[in-house]
């Protein structure tokens, strides 16, 4: 038994902030061009009344509207937000009850199990992994994985606090708000299926990226040692892991004929470096990566699924095509998800 992607939804708030505007709002603007370095031209930011919960609900509603399942048919909902913010401008970070319970109620998923997962930018991957394994085990028949990320408050803190050119809050300048949701169910066959999905945490690097409240201002903050996080050795973790998977289970990257690849949306250079690491290890040219980072920024846990959603909407991911999705997150987390999409494909 395998699972498949049955439906997908996403949400981007209407308000657009350009990288130039964001940099102009810094107390100490850097001497370098952040837009040129990251490739990020603009970012979406929550408007009044919007937060992790409201955006997550919007994405989930789209996924449900495009699904064959009615709300009461859904067996489980897993919310995967890092930011967990409710009550709009109050920015209440909620620890309990879980966001998934609030969503379950608002979406009318009256027969669903619910819980939240939190795993940095790999949150949605963690939710999808749990759901995929539970479907394969026969524990549930289907489920909804959702994440709303109201993460731009860390950019506000960074604008006030960054000093110098190697400040650990520079990564916070790249983030944007969004939500994504997917519904998985049992695969009907090889044309519509999660082919394989493996993920791991290399915990030696768990302290390289820490998100917590600032002690200098009233706001959330993220402190990242970028030089270590994005070192070549870290980038090689995915292809090394993937290569071992082929050795154990058969197959090669060349034989796979992936139509698309999606990397984490840290910036356009990061995506290119990820692809280069793959080409180097597998000895083949990787597919042209799908990106939205130029117009959304790094949307943390929703990034890969937002890219997939936008690519389907743009007609780039067609029915029956095969996509390789590569998580990258604090922890350090990496892995590979191979998926053939027919029902949701363009």
């Amino acid at each position, binding site marked *: 038994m395998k699972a498949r992607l049955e439906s997908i939804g996403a949400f981007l708030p209407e308000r657009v902030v350009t990288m130039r505007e964001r940099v102009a709002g810094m107390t100490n603007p850097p001497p370098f061009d952040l837009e040129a370095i990251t490739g990020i031209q603009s970012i979406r930011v929550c408007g009044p009344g919007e937060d992790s919960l409201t955006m997550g609900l919007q994405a989930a509603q789209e996924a449900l509207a495009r699904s064959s399942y009615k709300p009461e048919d859904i067996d489980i909902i897993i919310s995967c937000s890092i930011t967990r913010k409710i009550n709009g401008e109050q920015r209440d970070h909620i620890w309990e009850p879980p966001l998934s319970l609030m969503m379950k109620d608002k979406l009318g998923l009256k027969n669903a199990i619910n819980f939240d997962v939190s795993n940095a930018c790999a949150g949605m991957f963690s939710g999808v992994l749990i759901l995929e394994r539970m479907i394969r085990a026969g524990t549930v028949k289907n489920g909804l994985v959702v994440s709303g990320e109201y993460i731009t408050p860390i950019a506000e803190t960074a604008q006030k606090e960054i000093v110098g050119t190697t400040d650990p809050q520079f990564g916070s300048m790249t983030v944007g708000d969004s939500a994504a949701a997917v519904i998985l169910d049992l695969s009907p066959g090889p044309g519509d299926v999660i082919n394989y999905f493996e993920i791991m945490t290399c915990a030696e690097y768990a302290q390289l990226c820490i998100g917590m409240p600032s002690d*200098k201002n*009233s706001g959330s903050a993220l402190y990242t040692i970028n030089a270590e996080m994005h070192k070549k050795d870290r980038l090689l973790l995915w292809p*090394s892991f993937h290569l071992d998977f082929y050795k154990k289970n058969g197959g090669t990257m060349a034989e796979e004929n992936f139509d698309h690849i999606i990397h984490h949306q840290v910036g356009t250079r990061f995506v290119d470096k990820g692809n280069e690491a793959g080409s180097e290890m597998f000895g083949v040219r990787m597919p042209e990566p799908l990106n939205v980072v130029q117009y959304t920024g790094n949307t943390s846990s929703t990034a890969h699924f937002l890219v997939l959603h936008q690519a389907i909407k743009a007609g780039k991911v067609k029915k029956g095509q095969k996509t390789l999705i590569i998580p990258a997150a604090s922890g350090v987390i990496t892995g590979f998800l191979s998926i053939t999409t027919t029902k949701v494909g363009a």
Partner: protein
Amino acid sequence: MGALILSTGLCSGKTIRSSIACSVIAGQEAMKEASVAAEDVDLVINVGIYRDKNMVEPAMAALIQKELGMNPDYIKAGTGKNAFSLDLLNGGIGALNAMQVANSFLQKGAARHVLIVGADSHPSNQDVKDFPYNSFGAAFLLGKGNDERRGFQSFEFSSELRPTFGRIGKVNTANMGTHGRSIVSVDTDPDYIPASLQFSSRKAKEFVKARNVQPSGSLLISSQLNAEFADSLGKDLGFAGPSIANLFKDYGDAHTSSFGLGYRQFSTQAKLKPSTSVLFVGASPGLSVGCVHYVC
């Protein structure tokens, strides 16, 4: 055929205040008791909610995994083995959700061992009067089962939403000032605990009847929302007094760690014999209830 609880580990928050340190000690104890090495654990699920400094990234599970020495660097190790970790949050019943997740990974997946671990500490790592939970670390180490009469038998999760959820734990990040790493508010409705007891009792009765669990021959490990909660729930369900884990007097409300504390208490009392039936009942804000039936 369900997964098996191989061991438990505990850590007293009276001496170790950090949720991460407490979880690590509990995890180490569980692994040592079962003689399972770090490289043989495939998944770590942290179910603790309240954590050091209100950290939101990375997962607390990753920081715990690091201290437990699991999969520090896949390439450097060169063994081909790996491990994954994540935080699972669902108030006081996350540990029961984690048991169901682990059961799927172990019984039908490739996982060999899963460590469920957690502690709920005030973010300041201090004793704070209005914080309702006592910091205790608890860990369950789970392994594959091969006998359908043993291990996890059934799971049921229910919720009945109240407008105020009965209890809300949060940090108002817009107005927290510069002390956000050391504050959290937990607001509780005056009738939360009686309402939660009533809902838990109703749902547990339905579960016991539907799954043919015999309270007269079983042990009960439940949330410990106050001094009377476990006893009232147990007697409502027909459990005999000595078969109810009463933990509040010694530990207070240890929130997500209550189930590990209760299991350990029965183990110490030599009550967990082969084929002993155990009912876990978790009560949580929402209102939410989780029921799990396990056979030793």
